């Protein structure tokens, strides 16, 4: 059974981030259906983790022979500050920069460089970034940044 369009997209999307980042243990990246949304599960977290999941999709006629597909994917970047005390600005700054410098370019497929999935070409419509979650930072020393990425493609 072939995978749905949004799943193959999410998988390629995850691979693109992985290539840009190159995680090694204990850092991980994975495609999931349920991201670790409970901060209670993350009290002993070590390393940096990225999760990718499908959110929604729709389509509309593009022309008489093709359809334009819209797909929205979610990305979570999470890491716990394991040193005693409250996370300093420098630690947070480095992670904010990681999202801007490594993750966002890896999911921002403009016209010159679309995400290629076989013969498919997927483009990014927009990337919305929640820089961090103040509550999770305050309560659990967690860097928690979520991205919502809108993608589109035209296909027969």
């Amino acid at each position: 059974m072939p995978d749905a369009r949004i799943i193959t997209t999410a998988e390629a999307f995850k691979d693109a981030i992985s290539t840009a980042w190159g995680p090694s243990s204990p850092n991980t990246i994975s495609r999931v259906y349920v991201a670790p949304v409970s901060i209670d599960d993350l009290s002993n977290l070590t390393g940096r983790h990225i999760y990718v999941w499908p959110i929604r999709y729709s389509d509309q006629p593009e022309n008489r022979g093709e359809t334009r597909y819209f797909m929205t994917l979610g990305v979570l970047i999470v890491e716990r500050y394991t040193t005693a005390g409250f996370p300093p600005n420098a630690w947070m700054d480095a992670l904010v920069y990681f999202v801007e410098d490594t993750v966002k370019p890896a999911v921002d497929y403009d016209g010159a460089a679309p995400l290629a999935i076989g013969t498919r070409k997927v483009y990014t419509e927009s990337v919305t970034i929640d820089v961090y979650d103040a509550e999770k930072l305050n309560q659990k020393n967690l860097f928690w940044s979520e991205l919502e990425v809108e993608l589109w493609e035209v296909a027969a």
Partner: protein
Amino acid sequence: MAETSAVQVGIAAAVYRNAGSYGSPTWTEITLVKSVTPNVKWNRSDASIRATKALLQAKTQVAITGSIECRADPADAGYQALFTAAMTDSTGAPDLLILDGDIATEGVKGIRAHMNLDFAQNHSIDGVIYTTFDYDPAWHSAGYPSFVEMGATSTPTITAF
């Protein structure tokens, strides 16, 4: 088979190019077409007479114009045919069949002519590139512009203007 009453929708309309001869056409749909705006507009000349105070007009010539909006795609043979025709003179005018439905649907109507094509694109940073091909009929020794109505078994009735 009798025609069936139904709403006609734009996405079901079709533009075909003739890949065969004029007398034995092979109609191939150009599937990357998005929108077409066919127009048939008659010129008129005064035909008034003293028997009536009404101004009378007689149709004289007919202007067949319109535009075809088609997604630009270098790998698509239909788009390539339109592009080539737009870049060359009237000797390269393609034989087009512009219908308000599928060629296999009885009662579908449209225009057949060798068309001169003009070319316009919008390279907006946030858009997919479509080409607008404005058209009007070209002279061609094989035949003159006609209006068409599809009959049963995809057999058209073709009537010259």
